[in-house]
């Protein structure tokens, strides 16, 4: 099977409109989470990471008219454009385009807008991105709850590995909409303070919005310092459609399978990028799965304290951040952590640290009982 690499990437979030700006914000411990008024909540509002629409419009206007594209489309187009601008040699007629999102332009169901309702269809969204840049192949769309962005990378790797194509642009994005805010509120899952992953005093999630894009390719472009997707696996809990498995079954199976495929053992993992939504059940489930997989010593963080839960985008932007952790040899602090609030003694990253990193594991879990594990490795000289 061919090797597969994560090459150029971009993150569009309230913390910045490039990956570099995002990492700079993380190092400075800046969070995107702000209080937003909403009468639905007893506390008259909730914390979320929301991109300033005026700022987005003004940045986007250098590329095209903001009037013709929805907020999510602008975010996704900006992310893809950055990646393509750094890869002008890429033949778009032979480059796959994989879009991942949970709800796409779902806000169009509600808001009075100039955009036709068909824009809410996810294949429509995919075609807008395809046509904007002139991709030649039919785009793929993956909508798999909160593992979508990571699963899209895995799907790209699988197709590339068997030679279906050589390059893929994977793009992920989701918005904070009244649609999802009301739903998570009905689940009583939204924290009344900025979310605190894995903490004793965690009270639930904070939502966030972001888009990310990455070039996944069978060709490496640097030597050394390429990040290879060593292996990946996904497994369903087969337990409950919204409640995380009490035994962490699907996540554990995904991790085991990814380790097996790469022929590495848990002790070799230098860094673990968890899902860490900060709900009571999710974080406990992850801790149990990590314990079962002998990963309690691996330094682990959740990026949700910086961004909130960006749903279908989260696993992609966190994969990108994991890639840069490896490249920069930097462990980023798990923001808003207070005291360990899960039953297993996981090794939370409590402060920024420089140390040699070679092998990282990214995990994600979502509604529908889905789970994903992906191993990333920094390649030495060939």
């Amino acid at each position: 099977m061919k090797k597969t690499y994560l090459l150029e990437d971009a993150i569009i979030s309230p913390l910045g409109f490039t990956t570099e700006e995002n990492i700079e914000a993380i190092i400075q411990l800046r969070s995107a989470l702000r209080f937003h008024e909403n009468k639905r909540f007893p506390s008259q509002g909730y914390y979320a990471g929301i991109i300033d629409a005026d700022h987005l419009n003004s940045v986007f206007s250098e590329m095209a008219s903001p009037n013709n594209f929805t907020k999510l489309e602008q975010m996704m187009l900006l992310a893809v454009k950055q990646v393509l601008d750094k890869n002008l040699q890429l033949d778009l007629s032979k480059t796959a385009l994989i879009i991942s999102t949970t709800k796409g332009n779902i806000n169009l169901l509600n808001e009075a807008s100039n955009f036709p309702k068909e824009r809410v269809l996810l294949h429509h969204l995919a075609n807008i991105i395809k046509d904007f840049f002139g991709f030649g192949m039919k785009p793929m769309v993956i909508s798999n709850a909160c593992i979508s962005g990571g699963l899209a990378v895995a799907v790209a790797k699988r197709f590339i590995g068997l030679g279906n194509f050589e390059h893929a642009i994977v793009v992920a994005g989701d918005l904070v909409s009244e649609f999802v805010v009301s739903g998570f509120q009905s689940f009583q899952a939204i924290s009344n303070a900025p979310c605190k992953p894995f903490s004793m005093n965690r009270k639930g999630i904070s939502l966030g919005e972001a888009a990310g894009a990455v070039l996944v390719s069978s060709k490496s472009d640097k030597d050394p310092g390429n990040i290879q997707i060593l292996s990946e696996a996904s497994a369903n809990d087969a337990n409950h459609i919204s409640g995380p498995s009490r035994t962490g079954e699907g996540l554990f199976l995904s991790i085991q399978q990814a380790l097996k495929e790469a022929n590495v053992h848990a002790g070799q993992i230098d860094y673990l990028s968890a899902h860490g939504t900060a709900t009571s059940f999710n974080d406990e489930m992850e801790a149990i799965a990590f314990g079962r997989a002998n990963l309690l010593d691996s330094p682990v963080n959740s990026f949700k304290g910086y961004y909130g839960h960006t749903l279908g985008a989260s696993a992609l932007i966190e994969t990108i951040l994991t890639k840069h952790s490896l490249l920069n040899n930097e462990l980023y602090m798990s923001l808003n952590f207070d005291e360990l609030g899960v039953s297993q003694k996981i090794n939370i990253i409590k402060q920024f640290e420089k140390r040699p990193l070679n092998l990282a594991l990214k995990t994600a879990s979502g509604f529908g009982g889905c789970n994903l594990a992906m191993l990333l490795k920094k390649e030495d000289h060939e």
Partner: protein
Amino acid sequence: MSRESVYITDFVSLKNNQIKHQQKLLYKADSFLELKSFLKESYKVIGLNYPKFHKMDDLCKLGLLASEVILKEKELKTDTAIVLSNASSSLQTDYKHQNSLQQHVSPAVFVYTLPNIILGEISIKYSLKSENVFFIEETFNAKLLNDYAQVLLQSGKASSVVCGWINLINDEYDVFLCLISRKGEIPLSVENLEQLYLFENE
């Protein structure tokens, strides 16, 4: 695993008040039935005995019914992957949730506003702790289903694959599900998937 050894072992369709199993009529409503009634009748005809069924949204009900036709009494390996696709995502339930925003939002509705929930429901019913993915496509895409099933089988990530198309919008439904494994007579190919889907839709 070589390409020659993979077959479309079983297949089913639900459309226009009919259920066809391997091109044979399993159930046809005497007169036009609303979706709700069609689902209830089909539940009886198929002999599904699963109280959770009644709690599902209509997209998941369709998926469970179709799965039961091709999966019941089969010995499934736990690494049987599920690969489903449609055009409308969970839009029918999305509208239901959206319309409730001004009154009482129901968590039991909201949880179904993701297309991949059906993957979870099928996984739970048949104890499949396996690879899952939900693709959104404008129309039935035999090539994508074929190629991805091949990828899962050849890479050893799955020993068999439940795959297909399950679309629901404005109570109009179009479901085509098949089981792909090493057993059978119809070789897995884009052409065969396409033909079976089209036949089932006649």
